[in-house]
């Protein structure tokens, strides 16, 4: 708790700085917002001037920043230049798809990566390690947008076992939204057909997205385990007659978990960038695809809202990671 209180003022300063940076960017966007608001080409100078006063654009920069902050805090990011809807509505509609994709990816990389990292540390220098360690470098060197395309080529075009994109087959009724995550909602709705279909759509994008963090998690888990495997308390545990698997997982891994959790958190943040790319490949209707479409259409309010929201989410994830430490390692509790 004290940790939260201590970090709070810094966090407020950080968030203020981030929003100031995004606000700063909006000041340099091409196009005059007053001109656009006054109706564009037909607007008379008086109409533009009127719109400028109405939008508060005639006021000093710091006043406009405070107005921007007030609007952002109440979820008012302006209207999309393309579909004229409030941007916040779109963000609300699109984020669950991204969350589902990112959570699925981080789950895959944790479930696959941690055991592989542990194994390669326990067998350091032997053939299994010689397979896993270069394998992780290999994975880490993959451009995921290309890997995604290759996966579509193989699993959709050649083998025809998985769909090429989207969240559900067109025509299938989505389960009533509870969490917004299709897998969970279809379980709530007891709709096995929708669950299976959603899973089939999710598996390829999530696997591709997990590749980047998987490589990192294997390496960090391995390094953290190597640091710990020769500690005295492990020898004690072995001397007590505990089985090797109990020693490794119960005693060693618990202590190696701090760096691993750090990496999981950092990777979840890094995934934000990967989500943008993966959603573009698989036409996954989430925030990333929304942002890329907005960039293509020069939809400035949408781009800026996306930038602010994802950056704040990134900061929040990093804070959450910091707060998890004391739970894992009592030594950091003081």
């Amino acid at each position, binding site marked *: 708790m004290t940790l939260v209180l201590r970090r709070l003022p810094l966090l407020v300063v950080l968030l203020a700085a981030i929003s100031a940076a995004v606000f700063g960017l909006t000041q340099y966007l091409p196009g005059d917002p007053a001109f656009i608001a006054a109706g564009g080409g037909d607007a008379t100078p008086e109409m533009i001037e009127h719109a400028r006063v109405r939008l508060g654009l005639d006021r000093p920069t710091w006043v406009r920043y405070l107005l921007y902050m007030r609007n952002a805090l109440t979820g008012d990011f302006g209207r999309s230049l393309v579909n004229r809807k409030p941007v916040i509505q779109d963000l609300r509609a699109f984020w669950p798809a991204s969350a589902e994709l990112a959570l699925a990816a981080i789950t895959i990389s944790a479930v696959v990566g941690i055991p592989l990292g542990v194994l390669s540390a326990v067998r350091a220098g032997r053939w299994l390690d010689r397979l896993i360690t270069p394998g992780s470098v290999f994975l880490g060197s993959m451009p995921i947008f290309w890997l995604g395309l290759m996966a579509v080529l193989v699993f959709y075009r050649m083998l025809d076992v998985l769909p090429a994109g989207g969240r559900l087959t067109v025509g299938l009724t989505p389960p009533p939204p509870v969490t917004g995550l299709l897998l969970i909602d279809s379980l709530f709705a007891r709709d096995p057909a929708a669950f299976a279909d959603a899973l089939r759509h999710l598996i390829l994008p999530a696997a591709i997205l997990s590749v980047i963090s998987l490589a990192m998690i294997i390496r960090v888990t391995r390094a953290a385990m190597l640091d710990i495997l020769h500690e005295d308390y492990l020898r004690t545990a072995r001397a007590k007659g505990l089985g090797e698997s109990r020693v490794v997982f119960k005693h060693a891994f618990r202590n190696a978990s701090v760096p691993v959790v750090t990496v999981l958190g950092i990777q979840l943040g890094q995934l934000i960038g990967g989500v943008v790319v993966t959603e573009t490949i698989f036409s996954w209707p989430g925030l990333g695809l929304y942002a890329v479409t907005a960039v293509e259409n020069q939809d400035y309010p949408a781009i800026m809202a996306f930038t602010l929201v994802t*950056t704040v989410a990134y900061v929040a994830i990093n804070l959450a990671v910091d707060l998890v430490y004391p739970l894992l390692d009592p030594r950091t509790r003081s």
Partner: protein
Amino acid sequence: MVIALAMTLVPQLFTARDPNAIAYLERLKPPSLSHPLGTDENGRDVWARVVYGARPTLTAAVALIGLSLVVGSLAGLVIGASGRHTDEALMRVTEFFLAFPQIVWALALTTVLGRGLVNCVLALAVTWWAQYARLMRAQVLAVRQREFVLASRALGQREWWILLRHLLPNCFSPVLVKATIDVSLAILLLAALSFLGVGAQPPLPEWGAMVTIGRKYLLDYPWYATFPGLAIFVVVLAFNVLGERLRDVLDPTSQLRVRA
């Protein structure tokens, strides 16, 4: 890696063809003897474009890391050498820059600056330098209590001279290792940005941009997107392996740990 370097310097050695020569009769031909990797939607030779694509791809990545490294290292040197309060404050500043997810921020910045490879490099460098600043600062703090620094200070040498002459060279090896591995990250990020449409613009033969266009023809003409992507993968792998080797050479303790 050597091949990629050679492709960057003298692409003419590898192909006699012009990467921008358009031949509509030869559109989207599969790999053959005359076009080893096939042709694209304008009948341009994909192999020639992959060869010529090495230059923009690699120069942009190296420029990005070079820029971040120089700015970041100097900043880190200053931060590490400054007093406690200044150090504390400047570290908060670097935290601010690290708070931005790179791709998102690059998308936002290129919206304002305009698209293109150069603007992507700038957009990524804006946040990337902070990583080097933090690494360099940590090194400076570790090294500046060592005897040889204390000795030269005792000899009355100027502070900036100690910084440049004694601290900088001794702090540099982890920075160099990071830079080598970062070049591979930079290639991936820049290619991803080109793929998203804000990086290199056609007709520049850049690998990421080639994959983007090839994506339209993926299902019927798969060679088009496959080979430029493969080129990215091979070069990135080369830089990663080089970085690992460099780490082993410059920091023998990491080897010992594995053997222990």
